[in-house]
């Protein structure tokens, strides 16, 4: 497969699509976090303070780690593995949030710190991992330094657009059609399947390129 200079070759389109999904899921989950915490910590304004703080903090760390990770033999497979990891770490929100929140509720009387700890326990790890995807996507998309700013701009555009849609669609429609757990499991499944697809695509294209031209995948 010859290296294309056009940014919208199928490979790039796939990366953008994955970044969009990750942005969509992050905000969909953040929005549901308010509903998940409400039975134990209420809906006072500090609940959103806790949730937004934890998401912002995790994303910032995720960007840092993702950028660092992308310097060492970056590949579509590794990118896909990050998605799979994110998919798995979201699941405790469905399986264990009740007893986790209950024990936090019992130990911490102040609902500000209770909600802060609960959102950390439930959302910190998956959001860090989802945050890693952004710089990693840039690494996979950039082929020369001249276009790096433009690529980063496009990627932010796509993933933040995903976030916007994830927020509005989840809050306007999903909550009316599905249970919270159903929505979270769906996000997890979609992220996991896309990750798996990325790994498969990478393996196939590696085989193709090595059999056809003998060169290594140059992304």
């Amino acid at each position, binding site marked *: 497969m010859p290296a294309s200079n056009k940014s919208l070759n199928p490979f790039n389109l796939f990366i953008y699509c994955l970044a969009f999904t990750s942005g969509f899921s992050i905000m969909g989950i953040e929005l549901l976090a308010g*509903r998940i915490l*409400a*039975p*134990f*910590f*209420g*809906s*006072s*304004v500090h609940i959103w303070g806790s949730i937004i703080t934890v998401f912002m903090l995790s994303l910032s760390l995720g960007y840092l780690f993702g950028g660092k990770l992308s310097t060492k033999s970056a590949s579509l497979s590794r990118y896909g593995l990050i998605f799979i990891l994110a998919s798995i770490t979201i699941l405790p929100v469905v399986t264990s949030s009740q007893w986790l929140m209950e024990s936090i*509720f*019992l130990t911490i*009387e102040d*609902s500000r710190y209770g909600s802060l700890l609960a959102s950390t326990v439930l959302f910190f790890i998956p959001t860090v991992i989802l945050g890693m995807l952004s710089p990693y996507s840039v690494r996979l998309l950039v082929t020369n330094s001249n276009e790096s700013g433009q690529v980063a701009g496009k990627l932010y555009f796509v993933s933040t657009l995903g976030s916007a849609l994830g927020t509005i669609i989840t809050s*306007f429609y999903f*909550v*009316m059609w*599905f*249970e*919270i*757990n159903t929505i979270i499991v769906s996000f997890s499944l979609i992220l996991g399947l896309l990750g798996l697809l990325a790994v498969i695509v990478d393996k196939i294209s590696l085989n193709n390129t090595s059999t056809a031209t003998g060169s290594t995948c140059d992304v």
Partner: protein
Amino acid sequence: MFSHNTINNVIMTSLGLLLILMLLPQQASAKVIHKERSLYRNILVEDKGDLRCLKFNVKSSKTQQSCFLKSQPERLYFNYTKLLLSSLLINPNPEKILVVGLGGGTMSNTLHQLLPNSQIDNVEIDNSVIKVAREYFHFFENDNIKAISQDGRVFVKRALLKKQQYDWIILDAFNGDYIPEHLMTKEFLEEIKKLLTPNGILTANTFSVSKLYDYESATYKAVFGDFYQVRNLKNSNRVILAMNPEYNKHNADINNLTKANVEALKQALKQFGVDTHFLAQSMSSTQNAEDWPKNTPLLTDQFAPANLLNID
């Protein structure tokens, strides 16, 4: 010389004009006497002649939270607040009362006058509302009557941990434009049920016009079994009255249920503008009339789009 008639006419006309002038400023327009932006909403206190109202967000009558007549502060202005008192027809001496949603504190004041020895806990999420109630609505507090600034759900969960119980729980946390969805779910009502004493009663001000009516009714029925609906044909409010089903077998015969107290409370409630006979007549059991579809989904912590259902 003016004739007798002319003088009379002049006097009558001027008296009439004076009367109109005296009435005009009262009827003309409402005056905002206090305005503040709290963490949750805009709070308005409005005077319209003798009537003082607490409003949230906008200057329309739809968002009135609490009103009272300055000349007759004990009179209950809103119909639904009168309907909430139906609980007294079944259990006239609640010793511990929980009110979720303070508003202007008029409910708490009324209950204190009726039951001076009862303990009343008012839970209100918005601290600014508590301050406004104190300052503009004569909200009365003492050792027995408290206002706690906390989310209702969190208060109920903590109260259960402390093994507290209430004889009467009043849910009045729903205003027209935003519904705290976590205070409407099956799980929350289960918690409320555990917080009731054996003879405990829950009265809740609920929605009766939107799609939410069916969902809410089905959810209450799932938790409490058959309940009583208290409604007034004059307006769109419906109060749900549910008793602790673990101890009370549902009695669909309202007359029999309230018989003992309708006469006994007649005088006591009259000063608040409440007619006990009429109140008893406004009650009906869902055992005879279930007016929502059988397969209505329940509101749960997992599924509670109450605000979306309340749109139309």
